[in-house]
């Protein structure tokens, strides 16, 4: 395996008294697309929030391009080139569609993505650019959320449950554009409950259960039974 661009070392995470992650280790190589799966509450979102800096950890628990970033504030992590497409889309309701995209570019990082390029990817958004973001359909909102993250021209992009609550056609269309996004070398972590979707785009998979990694391996070497067992903790 090449030198990892992003690694987690014994990552713990707490919400007050409650511990959500227990010593998670992970190495992600540049350009890799990795799926993270697990049941509800397994700690997937927590993992992504820890990487993005929304949860504070010890500095050495997360390293990125050789820097210990575990204790860094989220905005500084963003400036370093890690972007998160949050669970449930989380658009800014008081910003228009275009403003939501523009604010994604706040870090001012150079790169291939621009407003035009995002509109090229999701043409429907251009038609709706002055609309309040809350008036879009769920799928369109998900497009804005993805576009917003791309506007930061990140090196690593984290997707949290992009298909949640979306109709199958929409899910399909979003998964159809995913290769265009990660195609030119962007590293991606994809959290997904729809296991087959997740596996279809990723090369490697981690399964979380109760805040611990219960299974990991290359997508093509892992069997459905392994996954189901790791996923629910029971044999199907």
């Amino acid at each position, binding site marked *: 395996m090449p030198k990892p661009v992003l690694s987690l070392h014994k990552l713990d995470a707490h919400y007050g008294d409650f511990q959500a992650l227990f010593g998670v280790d992970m190495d992600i190589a540049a350009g890799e697309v990795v799926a993270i799966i697990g049941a509800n509450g397994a700690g997937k979102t927590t993992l992504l929030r820890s990487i*993005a*800096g*929304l949860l504070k950890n010890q500095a050495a628990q997360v390293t990125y391009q050789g820097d210990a970033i575990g204790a860094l*504030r*989220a*905005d*500084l992590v*963003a*400036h370093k080139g890690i*972007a*998160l497409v*949050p669970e449930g889309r*989380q658009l*800014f*309701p*008081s*910003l228009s569609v275009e*403003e939501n995209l*523009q*604010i*994604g570019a*706040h*870090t001012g990082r150079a790169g291939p993505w621009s407003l035009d390029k995002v509109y090229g990817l999701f043409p429907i958004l251009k038609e709706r650019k002055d609309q309040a973001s809350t008036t879009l359909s769920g799928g369109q909102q998900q497009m804005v959320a993805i576009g*917003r*993250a791309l506007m*930061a021209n990140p090196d690593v992009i984290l997707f949290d449950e992009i298909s949640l609550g979306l109709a199958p056609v929409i899910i399909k269309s979003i998964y159809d554009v995913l290769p265009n996004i990660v195609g030119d070398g962007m590293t991606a972590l994809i959290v997904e409950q729809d296991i087959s979707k997740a596996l279809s785009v990723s090369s490697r998979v981690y399964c979380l259960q109760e805040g611990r990694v219960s299974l990991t391996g290359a997508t093509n070497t892992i069997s459905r039974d392994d996954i189901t067992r790791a996923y629910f903790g029971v044999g199907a």
Partner: protein
Amino acid sequence: MDWISAIVQGTLLGGLYALFAAGLSLIFGVMRLVNIAHGDLIVLAAYMGLSTTVMLGIHPFVALLIVAPAMAGIGYVLQRGILNRTLGDDILPPLLVTFGLSVILQNALLEAYSADPQKMNAGVIETASVPVGGLTLGVLPLLTFAIAVAVIAGLQFIFYRTSLGRAFRATSDNSDIAQLMGLNKAHVFGMAMALALAVTAIAGILLGVRTSFDPSVGGARLIFGFEAVIIGGLGNLWGTLAGGVILGVAQTLGAKIDPGWQLLAGHIAFLVVLAVRPQGLFPRVAH
């Protein structure tokens, strides 16, 4: 004619209240911060204006060039040093901290300037008047109203047309997600407080020109500011102006019935609005 006059005077008074409230509205709208010290910050600005005019011998309006940036600086430091650490779902920490700030400000001003009433001298403009369709209107109240409109238009522009305003709105909507966009929440809030206190400087100077002030007069005006913000609806600056005008007109009309009813009428107008529309008249974000 008397009633028309009362309404006109009330509207102009509303301009003053809106000016008191504009900074508050910004702070409340962006940070959900109930700033008990706002009235005292207005008085602080008035004293800074006074010192500047006395020391440099300049007109109070010119003193704004110094006071507004100074207040903005104070606001930024205050927000980053103290207030940011009190923000959250619980409204009590900011309430208590700004209460502490208010007590400190009042007493520090008392130490520095004594309790003597002070006033800034703005020359002929204070007493000048223009006849308008049978009414005689003071130039200063007209100017105050015009400034209130200009300030609110300016804030509205910053809020909705600039990247700083976009950052305000985004951080206010969801500060976690805004951080993901690379926005430093502490800095954005600091900028919002700086802007709010720059507006406060304008309110303070106009207060100090309009009437005499002493360290204790801030608190009495604070509640009108809050009322204007809430009547107008959270985060809607034009609503804040409307709220100020509603309060001002209610007060002058109440006073027309009996001067004892002046303040009461304003408060009752506030309660009636809330009874009918608990989110205020023009909330920006519908729930």
